[in-house]
C-alpha cells in the first residue's frame, strides 16, 4: 500500500454532525478488545516487547489504551457536570512511559483493557439523548466537544494505535517471523 498514515496530532476532526450516531460509536469502542486480541494472538513475546527506534512496543501501545481510559471517562464527567473545559491530557504520555508495560504479560494487559472498556460501554449505554449532545471545550483543539464527538475521538484514537501495531508487526515480520497481516 502506497499511502502513509497521518500522525495523530496532525489529525483534523469533523464534529459538525447534528445526527446521533452514538450507537455506532459505542459499537466501535466495544469492538476494540476483540480486534486487539485477534491481532496479537500468535505473536511472540519478543515481538510484543520490541521498541522500534525508541517508540512504544506493542504491549506499550495496548497499555497506553488502558492508561487513557480514566481520562476519557473523566472527560465524560466534565461534560455531564457542565465544566467549561475538558480536563487536560498529559501530552508527553509520561504515564505510559513510566508504567513498564513490557514487564506485564500480554494476557493481563488485554484482560485489563477489556475490563475497563466494558465499564465504559455500560456507562455510555446509560446516557440519555440529552447527555449525548452536551458539550465542553477541548483544551488542545479549542473546539466544543459533545459527548458523541468525544467518544468518536476515542474510537479514532483506538484505530490510530491499532494501525501503529500493524506497522510494528509489518516492520518486524522479517526480523522475528511475525505473522503476516
Amino acid at each position: 500500500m502506497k499511502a502513509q498514515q497521518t500522525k495523530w496530532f496532525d489529525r483534523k476532526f469533523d464534529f459538525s454532525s447534528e445526527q446521533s450516531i452514538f450507537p455506532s460509536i459505542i459499537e466501535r469502542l466495544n469492538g476494540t478488545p476483540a480486534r486487539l486480541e485477534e491481532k496479537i494472538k500468535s505473536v511472540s513475546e519478543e515481538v510484543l516487547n520490541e521498541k522500534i527506534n525508541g517508540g512504544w512496543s506493542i504491549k506499550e501501545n495496548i497499555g497506553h489504551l488502558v492508561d487513557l481510559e480514566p481520562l476519557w471517562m473523566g472527560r465524560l464527567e466534565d461534560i455531564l457536570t457542565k465544566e467549561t473545559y475538558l480536563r487536560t491530557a498529559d501530552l508527553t504520555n509520561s504515564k505510559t512511559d513510566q508504567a513498564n508495560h513490557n514487564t506485564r504479560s500480554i494476557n493481563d494487559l488485554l484482560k485489563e483493557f477489556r475490563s475497563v472498556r466494558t465499564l465504559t460501554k455500560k456507562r455510555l449505554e446509560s446516557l440519555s439523548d440529552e447527555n449525548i449532545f452536551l458539550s465542553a471545550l477541548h483544551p488542545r483543539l479549542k473546539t466544543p466537544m459533545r459527548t458523541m464527538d468525544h467518544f468518536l475521538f476515542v474510537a479514532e484514537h483506538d484505530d490510530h494505535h491499532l494501525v501503529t501495531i500493524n506497522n510494528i508487526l509489518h516492520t518486524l515480520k522479517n526480523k522475528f517471523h511475525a505473522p503476516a497481516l
Partner: protein
Amino acid sequence: MALPWFERNLNFGYAPKMLPFFLERLHGTVIRLEEKTRGIDDKILSKKLEGKWSIKENIGHLAEVDEIGNKRIGEMTSGAAILSPAVFEPKDYNPWSIEKVLDFFRKTRLANLKKYKTLSEEQLKKSSLHPRLKVQMTPVDLAWFDAEHDDHHLVKINEILDYTLNQ
C-alpha cells in the same frame, strides 16, 4: 433505535493518508462479528423480527455490499464517470450455518482489502459519482463509507440480540 442508514449525512473528501485507519476498521469487522455471534443459538441467528433481516441476513448483506464495492474500486481507478448502482440479488442466508455466512463475508472482505492495498496514491485520488448520494467518491471515501456501513449493521445485530436475549 439507531438512525436509519439512508438518512445519514455523510461527508467525503478523505486524504489517502487516512486509508490505513479505514482498512484497519474494515479488517476488524469480521472479528467483531465472530465474537458477537459466538455461542448464539441458530434460531436466534435466523430470526426475522417484524419481517426485517435476521442476523445472518445482515452479515450476508455486508458480503454483497463488498462485491459491489470491489467492482466500484475498479470503476473509480479506471476513470468511470458514474459508479454502478447497488443492485443486489439477495440470497436466503437463513438455512446457511453461521460459519458459512461468516466465511462468505470473510472472503469478500479480504478480497477488497487486498485490492485497496495494491492502489497507488494517484489511484487513491481518482473519483467517480456515487449514483444515490450524487457526490464524488474516491476509493478512500468508499473505504470509510463501508466502515460506517459495517457499524450500522453491527448495531442492527445488537438490537436483534438485545431484544431476543432479554425477552
